[in-house]
């Protein structure tokens, strides 16, 4: 009798489980994260914020139109070979395979660039990667969303011009570019040189060898040069070292502008008081007062499901950047569901369409609780960048404060360069660019 009961109960449970599985579709997102190594601070913050946002969507809304988000992490250690392994491992997981691959590493991005088009998985490289991939005709599966290094460089010149009192005042000014001597650091050269020709400022490029904890000679040069502005194109330990050396050299931190990989708490806190007054770009802002962060706190952390070990990092620049990754990924899936069927798990190819047709205007951002948190974004077949806007934040010694509104990039200049570079790539690889008028 007892046995019979158990069998019936078991069957009932199995039936329940089976039926619930059949009903609830799940969208799988593979996360090639890195939580160890020299860049662990960035990796753990961004992937942590992203996971928290997806957790929040599952908890608060029950997923996207009922489709629960699932994910799995794969440790890449910021290493290209490990990144490729993760890409292959995550590719076919979940109901419909991996929906999107966002490695947060330029090297891994390049390593999977050719593979994603074959496997039909969108590759999102927010704020890094191959700039010319913004030309969606040549790179249908690659999305350097929001903004690119080239766009950022133009906003820096705009920001400096604003401080000097107009672009005509730039003539004869001296700008020093202190850059990480790598492919990443060199991304800035072409644009800044082109703008130097246009506005007549004098650009001096100073390379800092990886990892950048030795900058004596560069700052000696800066002392001799007496530039009006220093652009800091740094990464990792190079940033606090630059700030400390600037303090030692006596160069005003108010006259230093950093890229978005120089503008996190992890870059300024180690520099101590030397960082005060330093300004950096960001396509997301710091702060925990935005409704979207509040939602994460009430729906995720209050239930003890948060991903961050150190809860005080919630609201930091890297964490919020992760939330932006989450916001945009979820929006793209939602958009794709509108076309391919609500409540269904989508393939990478379908999610790609979502990324290409994103429209996050002010109204939508307000609904998402992210007004001012990230810039409005609208992508198309031609334009995989979608915005080009950044805000500048200043470090006051204990936190980042937003000091500008969204500054728009000189998109005309950047777009020309992107198309030229993408066309060269297409020619080298024998790719026929898509005809965007035929895309739906």
């Amino acid at each position, binding site marked *: 009798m007892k046995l019979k009961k158990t069998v019936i109960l078991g069957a009932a449970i199995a039936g329940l489980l089976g039926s619930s599985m059949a009903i609830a579709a799940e969208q799988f997102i593979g996360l090639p*994260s*890195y*939580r*160890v190594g020299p860049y*662990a601070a960035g990796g*753990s913050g961004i992937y942590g914020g992203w996971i928290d946002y997806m957790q929040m969507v599952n908890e608060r809304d029950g997923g996207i139109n009922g489709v629960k988000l699932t994910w799995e*992490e*794969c*440790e890449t*250690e910021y*290493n*290209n*070979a*490990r990144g*490729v*392994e993760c*890409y*292959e*491992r995550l*590719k*076919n997981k979940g109901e419909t395979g991996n929906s999107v691959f966002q490695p947060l590493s*330029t*090297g891994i991005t*390049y*390593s999977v*660039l*050719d*593979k994603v088009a074959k496997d039909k998985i969108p590759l999102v490289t927010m704020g890094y990667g*191959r*700039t*010319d991939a913004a030309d969606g005709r040549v790179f249908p599966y690659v999305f350097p969303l929001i903004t690119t290094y080239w766009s950022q460089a133009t906003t820096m010149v705009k920001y400096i011009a604003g401080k000097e009192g107009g672009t005509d005042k730039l003539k004869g000014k001296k700008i020093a570019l202190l850059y990480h*001597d*790598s*492919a*990443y650091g*060199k*991304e800035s050269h*072409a644009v800044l040189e082109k703008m130097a020709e246009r506005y007549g400022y004098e650009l001096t490029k100073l390379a800092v*060898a*990886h990892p950048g904890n030795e900058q004596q000679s560069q700052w000696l040069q800066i002392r001799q040069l007496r530039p009006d502005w220093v652009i800091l194109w740094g990464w990792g330990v190079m940033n606090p070292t630059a700030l400390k050396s600037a303090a030692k050299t006596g160069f005003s931190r108010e006259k230093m502008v950093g890229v978005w990989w120089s503008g996190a708490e992890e870059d300024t806190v180690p520099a101590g008081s030397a960082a005060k007054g330093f300004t950096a770009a960001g396509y997301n802002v710091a702060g925990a007062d935005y409704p979207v962060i509040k939602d994460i706190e009430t729906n995720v952390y209050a239930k003890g499901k948060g*991903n961050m*070990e150190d809860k005080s990092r919630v609201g930091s620049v890297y964490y919020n950047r992760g939330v932006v990754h989450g916001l945009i990924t979820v929006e793209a899936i939602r958009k794709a569901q509108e076309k391919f069927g609500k409540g269904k798990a989508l393939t990478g190819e379908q999610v790609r369409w979502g990324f290409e047709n994103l429209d996050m205007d002010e109204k939508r951002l307000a609904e998402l609780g992210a007004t001012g948190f990230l810039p409005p974004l609208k992508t198309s077949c031609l334009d995989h960048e979608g915005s080009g806007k950044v805000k500048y934040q200043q470090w006051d010694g204990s936190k980042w404060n937003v000091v500008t509104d969204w500054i728009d990039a000189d998109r005309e200049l950047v777009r020309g360069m992107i198309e030229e*570079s993408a066309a060269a*790539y297409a020619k*080298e*690889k024998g790719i026929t660019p898509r005809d965007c008028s035929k895309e739906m």
Partner: protein
Amino acid sequence: MLYREAGQFKASYEADQQIFPILQDRVGVLLLIGFFALVVPLFADQYWLKAILIPVLIFSLAAIGLNILTGYAGQLSLGSAAFMAVGAFGAYNFMLRIDGMPFLVAILLGGLCAAAVGVVFGLPSLRIKGFYLAVATLAAQFFIVWALVKIEWFSNYSSSGVITAQEIEILGFAFDGPVSKYLLTLFVVVVMALLAKNMVRSTTGRMWMAVRDMDVAAEVIGIRLMRTKLTAFAVSSFYCGVAGALYAYTYIGTVEPEGFNLDLSFKILFMIIIGGVGSIMGSFLGAAFIVLLPIALDVFVPMFLGDLVSSSFVSNLQLIVFGGLIVFFLIVEPHGLARLWQIGKEKLRLWPFPH
């Protein structure tokens, strides 16, 4: 019993000079090659081919390269990754700039470029030894990567300094799927490994070993030090260069100079230390160990501990376990995994009547 060589008489010079003089070895190697060339492609899926087997083969080749230099000729080097980079960029430029360049010729030419660079950076070995030489090769590591970033011609003026490998086509057949790329890699690696195996027991190899064991004595018996050391650098760099070209063409596809950094050089050095210094088979075992163990840890550790601890802890735990296992292996078997096989072979020889 199983491994008995008794009764295998060599009746001709050819038989005496085979690469594998023992019948069991010959059969074993043939079976192994047959298994990987015929059986594996039938059953392995894309993940296994693209993410596991191809990198293991490529790193094995690089490890053979370093083993020739460090294990056989006794010259410590920390520049293997840089020589791989020269091979990759060399092959890319030959493919790019010469129309109709056959792929296999291009990777050999890439290897030759690496050999030439290796000889240049091998020159200090005539004067300095041991750890000091390691520092000199460290200079090669940094200089080559710097030069590849700095001189834009190497990357065909690409704005970010990366190169994208062209499509591989041999005699009209396009190698674009994982199976064909795997077979191509396997072919190159097997041929070069057999060549290496043959080389290390030839005059050249014996000269290398003589120099390794005591260079003064080697000089006294008439071995020319300069030539011997430089050939070791050339051959070693050639192997690394070909491995680098394969890394770009059959594995990653798009490579940046920074991908070939010091970490990779160290990794290749660990491969030969774990696998066995001075052993061709050890290079394969070491490469497999260093490539597969972190992946296995990344798969299995979260599986067992995933829900109990945070993901940061899991990631750090993998590194701790990995480091611990390396220390464990070095204590238990300081001569590497290849030595374990040798011990096993001796046991098999006596089995089932050990004395």
